[in-house]
C-alpha cells in the first residue's frame, strides 16, 4: 500500500464527513446498528489480517473476542467493577493467552494448517470452559450485562451514538496499526519468515518473537472489539461469539474482502455483515435456512475464484490496467 488509501484524498474526506454526520442524519436506527456492527467486525477482521496476510490463519479470534468480553462483563456483574477498568484485565488476559499459545505454536514450528487446527482447538476449548462454568457464566444461555440505563462511567449508553463513535475509533485504531506494521521492520521480517523460516533465521531474524508479537497485537485488538460489542449488545453467548462459527466469520470476511490490503478486511466485513443482516430481515424464519446455504455457497465460490478477495482483486486489476496503459504510452513515441 503506497498512499493512505489508494483512494483519492477527496473521496476519503467525503467518506469521513459522511461517517461523522451519519448517526445524526435521522436514518432508521437499524442502519446505525448495522454500521456499528460493521465497524466492530471490521476492526476485528483487520486485526485478524495482521496475521492472516502472512498466512498465519488463526481460527481462535472468537476466543480473543470472547475472553476479553466475558472477563469485562463478569467483573462488572459480580464485583460491580466498571468495564472501563475491567476491560484492561480482560485485554491483559487475552495478551497472555495469545502470547503463550502463539509462543508454543511458533516455537514448535506449527505452520499452515497445523497452526489453523491448533487454534481451532483453542477456540473450542475456551467455549467449552465457559459453558462448563455455567454457575458463573450462565453457560450456553449466554450472559446479560446488568443494565444501568445510561451510565457513562460504566460504559453503558442507551443511545447508539456513543457506541457508533467508539466502534469507529476502534476501527481507525485497527487500520492505523495495520499501516504501522506494514511500514515497520517487522513486516519485512514476517514476509521473509512466511517464505522461508530457515533462511530468515539464518540472517538473524527471530522467527518466534516476530510471530508471537504480531499474534499478541492482533489478539488484543480483537479483544477490544469484544469489549465494545459486549457493552453495545449487552449480551454474550459462548456459541455465537467464540466457537468455531464465530471464529470462522472473521476468516470469511478477510477472504471475501481481501486480506493483503489495508481496506480489504473492512470491505469484507461490510459485505458479510450486510449480507447477514439482509438475510435475517428479508427471509424471516421460513427461508432462513436456505438463505444461509446461499451465503455459504457465495463464500466458497469467492474463496475459489477470488483468492485475493473482492477489493484485492479490484486493486490488482486496476494496477495491471495502469501498467499496461503506461507500457502502451511509452511504446508509442
Amino acid at each position, binding site marked *: 500500500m503506497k498512499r493512505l488509501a489508494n483512494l483519492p484524498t477527496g473521496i476519503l474526506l467525503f467518506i469521513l464527513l459522511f461517517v461523522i454526520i451519519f448517526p445524526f442524519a435521522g436514518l432508521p436506527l437499524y442502519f446505525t446498528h448495522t454500521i456499528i456492527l460493521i465497524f466492530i467486525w471490521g476492526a476485528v477482521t483487520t486485526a485478524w489480517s495482521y496475521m492472516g496476510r502472512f498466512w498465519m490463519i488463526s481460527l481462535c479470534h472468537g476466543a480473543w473476542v470472547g475472553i476479553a468480553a466475558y472477563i469485562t462483563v463478569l467483573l462488572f456483574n459480580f464485583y460491580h467493577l466498571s468495564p472501563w477498568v475491567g476491560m484492561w484485565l480482560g485485554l491483559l488476559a487475552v495478551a497472555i493467552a495469545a502470547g503463550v499459545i502463539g509462543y508454543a505454536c511458533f516455537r514448535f514450528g506449527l505452520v499452515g494448517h497445523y497452526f489453523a487446527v491448533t487454534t481451532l482447538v483453542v477456540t473450542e476449548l475456551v467455549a467449552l470452559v465457559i459453558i462448563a462454568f455455567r454457575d458463573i457464566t450462565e453457560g450456553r444461555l449466554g450472559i446479560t450485562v446488568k443494565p444501568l440505563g445510561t451510565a457513562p462511567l460504566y460504559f453503558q449508553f442507551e443511545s447508539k451514538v456513543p457506541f457508533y463513535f467508539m466502534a469507529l475509533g476502534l476501527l481507525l485504531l485497527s487500520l492505523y496499526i495495520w499501516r504501522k506494521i506494514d511500514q515497520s*521492520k517487522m513486516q*519485512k*521480517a514476517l*514476509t*521473509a519468515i512466511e*517464505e*522461508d523460516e*530457515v*533462511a*530468515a*533465521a*539464518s*540472517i*538473524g*531474524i*527471530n*522467527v*518466534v518473537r516476530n510471530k508471537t508479537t504480531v499474534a499478541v497485537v492482533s489478539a488484543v485488538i480483537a479483544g477490544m472489539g469484544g469489549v465494545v460489542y459486549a457493552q453495545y449488545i449487552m449480551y454474550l453467548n459462548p456459541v455465537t461469539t467464540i466457537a468455531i462459527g464465530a471464529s470462522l466469520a472473521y476468516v470469511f470476511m478477510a477472504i471475501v474482502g481481501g486480506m493483503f490490503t489495508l481496506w480489504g478486511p473492512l470491505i469484507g466485513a461490510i459485505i458479510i455483515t450486510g449480507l447477514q443482516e439482509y438475510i435475517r430481515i428479508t427471509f424471516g424464519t421460513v427461508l432462513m435456512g436456505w438463505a444461509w446455504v446461499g451465503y455459504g455457497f457465495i463464500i466458497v465460490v469467492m474463496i475459489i475464484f477470488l483468492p485475493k478477495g473482492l477489493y484485492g482483486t479490484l486493486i490488482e486489476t486496476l494496477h495491471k490496467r495502469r501498467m499496461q496503459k503506461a507500457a502502451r504510452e511509452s511504446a508509442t513515441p
Partner: protein
Amino acid sequence: MLEVHSVSKYFGGLGALKEVDLRVNEGEFVGLIGPNGSGKTTLFNVLTGVLKPTSGKITFMGHDIIGLIPDKICHLGIARTFQIPRPFKTMSVVENVMLGVMFGGRYSTRSGEDARQEALRCLDNIGMKVTEATMPGELGVAGLRRLELGRALATRPKLLLLDEVISGLNAEEISEATSVLKRIKDEMGITIIWVEHIMGPLMNLVERVIVLDYGEVIAEGTTSEVSRDERVIEAYLGAE
C-alpha cells in the same frame, strides 16, 4: 575461534556426524571436503543451530552455542549459504540483501535508505550487477549462488560457512567466484569454512583441508598432505 568437541548427530540409527572434533582459528580459510552424504551440510546445520547435535560441545569465540537459536548464532557472527539456494522469491535481489543488513547485527538500527545503500555496496563488493528491480527468479545458478553469498555477507559475519558456492557454474563463473572469495578473506578479514566438491579451485585457495567420511574426520592438514593421505584417496575412490 571455533571449537567443535566430539559432536555427534544421529538421524534415527544413521550417524551423520560421529564424534567430530575440529577447530578453526581466526582468519583461516579452511576447506571441508568429503564424499556425498559424509555429513558436511549436517555439520553446517549443527553449527548454525538449525539442528541440535545428539551430543558434543561447540564454542564460538568463547560462547557455548549449542542450543542457541539460529538468529542468535547469526548475531554472534556466523553466517552461512545454503547448498540449494533459498532466496526470498517475492523480494528483489536488493531487498534480499537488505534483510541481511537490517537483521544481521544484534543491535542493528539500520533500516530504510541506509540499509539499501549498504546492500548495494555489498552487492557491488561481490561483483554482482543487478538493478533494483531484479528478482531472484531472473537469476541463473551463478546469480543465485552469488545472492546467497551476498545475503550472508550482509549480516557482517566473523565466520562464513559456504556450502558449495561454485557447483553448477562454468569455468569463467568459477574463476570470478573464487576471486570474490579471495577478496572476502583477504580484504574483509572474514574466516571461512568452504564445502565444495570441485577440488581444483578449493585446493588452490584454502590453507587447510578437513576431510569428512561417513560422519568422521578422516584427515586434516595442508592441501598437499591431504591429497597424499591414503584414507582420503580410498574414501574418494571407494565412493566412485
